[in-house]
């Protein structure tokens, strides 16, 4: 793993895009496809709202339920006559940001708990990991909804509760990784030098576990976007009038016969975004795993 992160070429000052990791990633066609798809989506969400003639909150009751491609409504309109394209792009900003920051927070929580549990081991490690197991025993949607009912449903709080319910896999992974590194010679050397435990954990051991963490973090973005969609669809996530991909689907079921595009458009957006992150994660797994060359 360390070879990947600090490959000789990188040390020698060669261009980073020629590094082995990047080359391997570029060979993974699906990962590249995912990367392109998500880049296009992010670009569309950033630029889109400025190009469209409609505001995402503009209500036009004469243009209710316009099917896609009526006039300037490329994706049609919703039951209030609001432009779906404008809502979709603005919703994308929120859904992607929630997904991203939930990933950052849950990776942070998971990494700290995993490193501490793996480094100290013993009773402390066992207790921490049993807590991880206990959290994993709850179906995450149940836990998420129960928490969502208690907090103010702002995008910030939604991000926090998604992170609070999805850090466990990363903690498990980091714990296993750190436990396997704990007895290595470079750690013993660091100990012998009398470096503080915090330094050894986060500056000596952790950098060697970055590869798997990056992979898991990418997959966590996918999961977080899905979870936001689930709870917003069920009415406990991002609250209207703020659009999110999940809450755009919230009322779609009752108009399924009359206006199927209400359900189809945001659903395709969610699926594309989540698929992209899953593809990228898969590609990174291959690219960052030093052992994958052998097989």
């Amino acid at each position, binding site marked *: 793993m360390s070879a990947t992160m600090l490959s000789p070429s990188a040390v020698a000052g060669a261009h980073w895009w020629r590094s082995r990791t990047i080359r391997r990633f570029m060979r993974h066609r699906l990962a590249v496809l995912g990367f392109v798809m998500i880049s296009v989506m992010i670009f569309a969400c950033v630029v889109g709202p400025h190009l469209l003639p409609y505001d995402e909150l503009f209500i036009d009751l004469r243009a209710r339920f316009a099917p896609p491609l009526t006039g300037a409504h490329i994706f049609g309109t919703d039951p209030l006559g609001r432009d779906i394209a404008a809502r979709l792009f603005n919703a994308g900003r929120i859904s992607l940001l929630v997904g991203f920051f939930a990933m950052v927070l849950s990776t942070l929580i998971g990494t700290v708990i995993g490193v501490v549990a793996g480094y100290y081991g013993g009773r402390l490690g066992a207790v921490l990991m049993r807590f991880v197991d206990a*959290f994993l025993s*709850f179906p995450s949607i*149940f836990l998420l909804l129960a928490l969502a009912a208690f907090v103010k449903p702002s995008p910030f709080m939604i991000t926090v509760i998604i992170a609070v319910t999805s850090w466990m896999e990363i903690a498990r992974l980091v714990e296993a990784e750190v436990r396997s590194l704990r007895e290595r010679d470079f750690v013993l050397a660091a100990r012998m030098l009398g470096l503080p435990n915090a330094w050894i954990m986060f500056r000596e051991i952790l950098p060697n576990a970055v590869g798997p963490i990056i992979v898991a973090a990418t997959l966590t973005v996918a999961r977080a976007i*899905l979870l936001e969609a689930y709870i917003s669809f069920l009415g406990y996530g991002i609250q209207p009038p703020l659009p999110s991909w999940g809450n755009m689907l919230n009322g779609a*079921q009752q108009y399924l016969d009359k206006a199927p595009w209400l359900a189809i458009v945001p659903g395709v957006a*969610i699926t594309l975004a*989540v698929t992209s992150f*899953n593809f990228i994660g898969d590609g990174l797994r291959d690219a960052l795993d030093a052992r994958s060359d052998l097989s």
Partner: protein
Amino acid sequence: MFAYLLNRLWQSLVLLVLVSIIGFAILNLAPGGPLSQFALTPGMTREALDRIAHQMGLDRPLPIQYLDWVWRLVQGDWGKSYRDQRPVLDIICGHLFATLLLMVSSTLVSILIGTWIGIKGATKRYSLFDYTATVGAMVALSIPTFWFGLVAIYVFALKLKWLPAGNMYTIGDQSLYDYAIHLVMPSLVLALVNIAVWSRYMRTATLDVINQDFVRTARAKGLTPRRVLVKHVVGNALLPMITLAGLQLPTILGGALVTETVFTWPGMGRLFLDSLGYHDYPVVMGLLMFSAILVLLGSLIADLLVALVDPRIRLG
């Protein structure tokens, strides 16, 4: 075997205690805590609230409250619903059958299809089938279950009119056929994600087994490829799948919640959402604890099954 059993039981018990601590913490996280139900009553005063808190024992130290709460859970007293004052455990058990029906049928379907795809993908590695299955599984894992349900309803119920759009049965016609036809769509929708998971794991497990010496021996002694596959490979590859089934339980339960919502299926998931809508926290908490216990029980059963089937553990 006995030592293993005892150790496994002990682990489950520890987990159960931790689960109950988390549950209790969430219960006390609720704004106003367990008192919130009374705070909204018109004409409620601070003094009256304090009196109720005292009657409910909420002014005692938290650890005592926790022990009291756990003791009542153990005795089967899970509190009463705010909505209709019925005991929580009764309400949950009333919804258990529908959820179990959905989960069991969809798990059976997904195991059958998933293992088949996994075995075929592993034996014909890097073929078009294998590649399609791999990509398909990743896409299937990315589709929101509820949205897939909506699309299925649109296509099969609204356009083709082959299947009913929701509910568990038609009122007045509760024949077995009627139940079955209502079950098809929700259980297939719930199965999609699990088919993806099963096929990925089965592919890996089969590949692990296929390269082992005893498979080569079986081939070398002239067994037909089919017999090698069925008797030697699949049997061994299925073993880790039992453990996986236990690990997948929380996901399947969570998926059932969403599926039930879309298909108005009268199970635990719908009950959970309805109760959330009514701020019926005793039922919400009850379901949270109940599902965690179900998951712990499931993984315990899965591990015991493995121990029973696998001679390395049974005799070790």
